[in-house]
């Protein structure tokens, strides 16, 4: 029965759809195929989430091979949460994409964009559902390679160097990851995450495993773009096509954080993590990321670059939440993972609409846009408020949890830092708002029109989600807390 | 102002009226003090039991406040264009 194969279909559907776009290189067709595939993925992901909620984790053996030999997929609440997040965001972005792609990517390459996009989606979903450490690497590389190519599709020639730099750094990160997996395999003889978790405690003290852990943290840190491994990110997000920036910012780094969570808590286990000096260095890096990312963002002239640095800061928040190693902290981190995806996709997409209309995202070129493109800029403002953490937006919810976690752990200076860097966020968002609303001659740019409806609808869908989940907090918090409890060894 | 003859002025600001107003005002002041002879003022803290306490206390503190403000003004006053021109870029 097909229903029992749903876990693998999650990956197969976009994977099969991808080559279709190469074979039939027609723009409209490719878009339809891609949209159908992502929507199917979304449906599958939601089904999985509901099933996991009702019946607990799902395991699936690929080709019927049992876990230690074959590749096993395992979907628990966190994986289901991630698949929903990734497929939801990618669907919305695809709805947005046709006009933006039409403007930013030449007709001859449009079908390749959809191919790469689907491959990327495959990789990201695969990472979320797989229960095998090596298989995870394969999916990681599928998503990474396609994202290098996606970034290189940017119009600016700097997109090429950015993609190349990302390629080098990403490959090093991924290679670090397999080195670590290899070392763990050498010590335990298994690649299955569940088995690893069982066998690791015996060999935890060996140097091999300790080195493996170092490789893991640095390798995944590169993928997450955690400070100071973030060097590749600003250029990549700045020069990639708008749609790609939105997609990567919202999903790629989030999935990398997912890997970190998996490795730390599902493989090594919360006790081992607590016993090792892992959380403290991560926390310090997170604090640096928060403050430095936001501070650099303030001085940027390119709005996309500003958002890129802001992403580095926001990743800091997520990692900070994780580094508390408490249910509240982890809940905050996981919530922010979801919430940041919502805000950043909304923000990047509104910049995409701006670029579509004025051909630039330099802040100075946005003067008077508040009048010319009221809906787009209003979405940007709401997204920005969410980023700052204004009440009634999702940003408030996750910051609330982070602050609470800090206070519960007795580290109130960290709570102060969280708030202080929110103020920095206010400053950089304000810079855009000020220019868009308060600068520029009223007559300037009278010919600029509001973005088309096909762009506004997805933008406002995400913006609405920012507000909706900021007010109706029940569902996201329940899911995030369930995931956090599970990671910390609570009942699954 | 001075080229306006007294009769062109509003009746309230004519010199004669002002003079009458002063007299009326001073009469009222006297009246409030005299009233204290009829109304029993029960003080709470000692000092305020003195005769016409509120009158001289009001006069005195006001004088002190005006003079104090004047002195502070030497330090704090700036031309009212002080902030103009240099805070345009915040």
């Amino acid at each position, binding site marked *: 029965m097909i229903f029992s194969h749903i876990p693998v279909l999650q990956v197969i559907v976009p994977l099969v759809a991808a080559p279709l776009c190469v074979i039939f290189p027609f723009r409209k067709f490719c878009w339809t195929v891609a949209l159908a595939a992502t929507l199917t993925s979304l449906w599958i992901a939601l089904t999985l989430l509901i099933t996991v909620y009702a019946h607990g984790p799902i395991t699936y053996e690929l080709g019927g091979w049992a876990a230690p030999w074959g590749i096993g997929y395992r979907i628990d609440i966190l994986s289901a949460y991630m698949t929903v997040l990734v497929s939801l965001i990618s669907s919305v972005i695809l709805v947005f994409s046709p006009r933006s792609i039409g403007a930013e990517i030449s007709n001859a390459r449009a079908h390749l964009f959809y191919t790469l996009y689907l491959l990327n989606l495959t990789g990201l979903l695969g990472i979320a559902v797989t229960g095998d450490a090596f298989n995870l690497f394969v999916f990681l590389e599928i998503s990474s390679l396609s994202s290098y190519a996606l970034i290189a599709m940017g119009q600016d020639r700097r997109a090429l160097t950015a993609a190349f*730099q990302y390629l*080098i*750094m990403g490959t*090093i990160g991924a290679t670090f990851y397999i080195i670590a997996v290899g070392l763990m395999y050498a010590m335990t003889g298994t690649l299955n995450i569940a088995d690893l978790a069982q066998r690791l405690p015996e060999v935890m003290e060996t140097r091999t495993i*300790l*080195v493996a852990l*170092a490789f893991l943290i*640095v390798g995944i*840190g590169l993928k997450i773009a955690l400070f100071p*491994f973030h*060097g590749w990110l600003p250029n990549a997000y700045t020069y990639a096509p708008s749609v790609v920036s939105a997609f990567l910012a919202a999903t790629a780094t989030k999935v990398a954080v997912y890997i970190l969570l998996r490795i730390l808590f599902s493989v090594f286990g919360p006790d081992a993590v607590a016993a*090792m000096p892992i959380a403290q*260095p991560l926390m310090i890096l997170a604090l640096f990321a928060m403050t*430095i990312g936001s501070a*650099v963002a*303030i*001085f940027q002239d390119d709005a996309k670059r500003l958002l890129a*640095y802001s992403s580095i800061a926001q990743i800091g928040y997520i990692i900070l939440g994780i580094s508390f190693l408490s249910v509240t902290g982890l809940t905050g981190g996981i919530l922010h993972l979801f919430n940041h995806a919502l805000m950043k996709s909304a923000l990047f997409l509104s910049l995409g609409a701006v670029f579509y209309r004025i051909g630039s995202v330099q802040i100075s070129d946005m003067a008077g846009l508040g009048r010319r493109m009221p809906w787009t800029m209003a979405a940007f403002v709401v997204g920005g408020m969410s980023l700052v953490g204004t*009440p009634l937006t999702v940003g408030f*919810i996750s910051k*609330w949890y982070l602050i*609470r976690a800090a*206070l*519960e752990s007795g580290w109130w200076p960290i*709570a*102060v830092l969280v*708030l202080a860097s929110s*103020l920095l966020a206010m400053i950089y968002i304000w810079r855009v708002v000020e220019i868009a609303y308060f600068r520029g001659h009223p007559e300037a740019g009278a010919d600029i029109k509001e973005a088309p409806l096909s762009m506004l609808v997805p933008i406002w869908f995400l913006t609405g989600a920012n507000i909706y989940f900021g007010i109706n*907090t*029940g569902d996201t*918090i329940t899911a995030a807390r369930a995931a956090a409890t599970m990671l910390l060894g609570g009942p699954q | 102002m001075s080229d*306006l003859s007294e009769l062109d002025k*509003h009746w309230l600001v004519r010199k004669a009226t002002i003079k009458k107003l002063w007299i009326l005002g001073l009469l*009222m002041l006297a009246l*409030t003090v005299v009233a*204290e002879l009829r*109304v*029993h*003022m*029960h003080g709470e803290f000692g000092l305020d039991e003195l005769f016409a306490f*509120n*009158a001289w206390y*009001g*006069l005195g*503190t*006001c004088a002190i*406040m*005006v*003079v*104090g*403000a004047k002195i502070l*003004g030497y330090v704090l*006053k*700036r*031309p*009212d264009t002080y*902030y103009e021109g*240099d*805070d345009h870029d*915040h």
Partner: protein
Amino acid sequence: MIIDAFPPGLVLVFGAFLLPLLPGPVRAAAILLLPLTTLALIISLPDGNLVAIPFLDYELNPLRSDKLGRLFGIIFSIMAFAGGLFALKQERVAELSAAFLYAGSAIGVAFAGDLVTVFIFWEMMAIGSGIVIWSAATPASFRASMRYTLVHFAGGVVLMFGIAMTIVDTGSIAFEPMRVGSIGTWLILAGFLVNAGAPPLSAWLPDAYPEASFSGSVFLSAFTTKTAVYVLLRGFPGTEILIYIGVFMIFYGIIYALLENDMRRILAYSIINQVGFMVTGIGIGTELALNGAAAHAFAHIIYKALLLMSAGSVMYMTGKRKCTDLGGLFQSMPLTATCGIVGALAISAFPLTSGFVTKSMIAQAAVDQHMLYVWYALAAASAGVFLHAGIKFPWFVFFQKDSGLRPDDPPWNMRWAMILFAGLCIGIGVHPAPLYALLPFEIDYVPYTGPHVVAMLQLLLFSGLAFFLMLPLMKRTLTLSLDFDWFYRKLGTVAALAVTDKISRIRNRAEASGRRLLDTTIAAATRPVKPRGALARNWETGSMVLAVTVALGLFALLFF
């Protein structure tokens, strides 16, 4: 989720978004009807927690109805009505929308049963009031609104942090009386005090309010500081430090108002002075004192709005705002002058006005608690109020010299708004019983006793004498006075201005070297994050790889 009644504040909040969409005449009707609907809703509210919404792990109670909340709700909605009437002809709809958002949020705070709701409405107020200032649409108002918003967001952050700490401490989000002690409660107090205009962060008030439009400052005078009074009443009754803060605010307001030349800045400083009375009352904390603070807030909203309406009318008709440019206006604006004088008498607490029946409760509470110095200070301050607001404002605007200006009284809506509030000032003063019935505690206070009336008349009339005797000392000059906002407006950016000061040269030198130090520090601190700085420029691949290698080594070392 339980909803037993509709939160009255939301009528105005939703109305705010509706206003720009309505055509002219319908909008005018809505401006008048929305506050009245709100008022009716508030009066009809039964006591108790009427709405419960699950949020995060808690339950929000955005509609806690009791006497204290209702008192503030009533005056806020009356104020919204009168303000709306006064601003009926305001062309900028944005200002009215923002003002309604602002008023609705203030009512929201008044009925907030938990700290999170307080915070949410608190921030909405900051946004609403910021837009009110901004919509005066002058460069100065734009800059002032920026500074205003920044101060309030900073205050909001402090408040938020305090709330978070308190919730983690106590495990409850209920908004109940607190005792200062933990860092959390101190921060909440600080956040509240920023909005009350307490020192040192008080300068935002005279900085921003006078920059609003003629009608904008009427709204502004009512809500922010009075919601702060409300939350202090609710959260920190009897907190001793508030007495000292309040007394400081009283005299700070008087002194600065005496120095001021701009008529609306005079009134702005006098807001701080009046709020000082209320804060002192809250600090004293007896039932009489708290009743006094609440009643005084009620009365203050009315007469201060009245004063700002008359100032606004003058500005609307003449376009001038400085005492040095005004004078003699009573001849052609008799109604405005009369209403202004009524407001001035009320603020000075003349017998038969609202100020008399409310402020005296606070002084009486100080007597009852045998607080000698507080009482002396309050008595001196009462005299000072008459001096700086009671006489100074009407004298310099409506009398003084003849400026030659002969403007008419303002349009009908502005006149009626003033008449309404002037009537309320006198009505409450003559017949205080209805107001006393609304107060949070039972009361058997009699304001009109022989000694009290005589004492007050003596005090006020003799300070009036002092005013006219010392008039030469108070000649208006084209100046402003430095306040705490100098630190964020001037320090670090101050140009070598030619200053009237005798010690300017020394000061300039000190300023220059201080500035240089500050500039280099700031430059050194921000250099790494500026575009070409180490942290912000594009890293070479090689150095990134090197960083990765080093990090790997460090982690490996750490784990061994």
